[in-house]
């Protein structure tokens, strides 16, 4: 309970700071954010867009790991953990896509232009969609769990190819290569702090939602279980 309130407060502070701290050309006070060339005030979306994108990947990896654990342990608990991760990953993937498209509209002038990042998040969305389509098409619980895990494994091994393929197909406009040009992050301390706080806050949110999700599944299974005399 206390942790939940703390999490809510933490995220509220992050949101207020992320939107409220002044952006100035030459930061002098500890609370000044620097102006990112070409992005200006729009750079604030980084505090919300990057955590959601990060969590959509975390959700996928967690679904994959729990899927593999299910294949080894055959315990239905692991399957509901895997499904919960995928569900949340899908939610955050949608958020990352939407925030990214809004950012793209304001910076590049179009909601969608098949930038490498946009393509890979789109593929992630498709994989999540396919994963849930598969889950809903199998009635037997054990079969559903193992098929979903196998699909996650196959998707997991083909995903990394995009890292190599996309640069060959199209050049990127994504600010990460620009913000991160010399291999170090161009953020001052205030910006970095808010950014990391936001990353931690959203990850905490993800973890809390994940635990609730798993708990709900557990209770549902207990209710549905025939209580034999």
């Amino acid at each position, binding site marked *: 309970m206390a942790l939940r309130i703390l999490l809510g407060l933490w995220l509220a502070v992050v949101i207020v700071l992320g939107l409220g701290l002044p952006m100035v050309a030459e930061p002098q006070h500890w609370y000044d954010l620097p102006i990112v060339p070409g992005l200006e005030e729009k750079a604030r979306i980084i505090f919300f867009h990057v955590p959601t994108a990060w969590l959509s990947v975390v959700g996928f990896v967690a679904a994959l790991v729990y899927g593999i654990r299910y294949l080894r342990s055959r315990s239905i608990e692991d399957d509901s953990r895997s499904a919960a991760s995928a569900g949340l990953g899908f939610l955050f993937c949608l958020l990352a896509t939407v925030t990214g498209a809004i950012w793209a509209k304001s910076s590049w002038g179009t909601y969608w232009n098949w930038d490498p990042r946009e393509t890979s998040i789109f593929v992630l969305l498709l994989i999540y*969609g396919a994963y849930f389509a598969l889950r809903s098409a199998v009635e037997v619980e054990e079969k559903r769990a193992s098929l979903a895990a196998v*699909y996650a494994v*196959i998707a997991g091994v*083909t995903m990394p190819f995009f890292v190599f*393929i996309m640069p*060959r197909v199209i050049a990127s406009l994504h600010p990460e290569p620009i913000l991160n040009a010399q291999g170090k992050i161009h953020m001052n301390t205030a910006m970095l702090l808010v950014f990391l706080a936001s990353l931690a806050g959203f990850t905490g949110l993800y973890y809390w939602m994940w635990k609730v999700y798993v708990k709900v599944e557990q209770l549902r299974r207990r209710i549905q279980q025939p209580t034999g005399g």
Partner: protein
Amino acid sequence: MTTLRADRRFSWLRSVIAVYAKDWHSELRTRYAISALLMFVVTTIAIIMFSLGSEDAPPEVLSGMLWVVVFFGAMSGLARTFVMEEERGTSMTLQLLTGPSAVYFGKLLFNLVLVFGLNSVTVVLYLLLINGFVVKTVSIFLVTLILGSIGFAAAATIIAAIIARASTKGTLYPVLSFPILLPLLLTVINATRMAGEGAAFSEAYGEFQLLISYIVVVIAASTVVFDYVWKD
């Protein structure tokens, strides 16, 4: 001891061939997959020709469209080999008779032959019928076609094994396959475009490396996880 091990290896190979031969037997009896693939290719190419009319589409668009035909063509017939086992209720017998890896490789071989056939027919028809589609570097095109076919068969086989166990088989197949096949599709489309532009063979090495590693990774992962799909 060594002869025993060699014997066992041969028996594995024999099982693979036997599964493959059995699939051809039952396929030739109904010709379900072959006619589905052929009719699909003919229909799609006809639609492309109608929609183009007398216009000349740019070669990049045409090389992309070739793989659209191949993708949906493959999706119309390649699931058959596993779906058939479920529909006829023969999968249990097959499980008793031979190990999962023999089943997987037998079915992979069967799908490989189907995809090669599909791609050859598609490319011949495409080259004959579609104006403006030219291949300047034949070597790139041929290697792309061969590697692309193997990659298609590899990914299509494991997805077919998955969807054969689900209740909505037909619609689910392209949905599940597309994200898995997309890295392959992007690479072969890129390589086909290079072949059309007349790039030197060495320029396409990167594409070929990607295709080969894709094939290796997908087949390796499939052999590991196939057990879990196949066994009840």
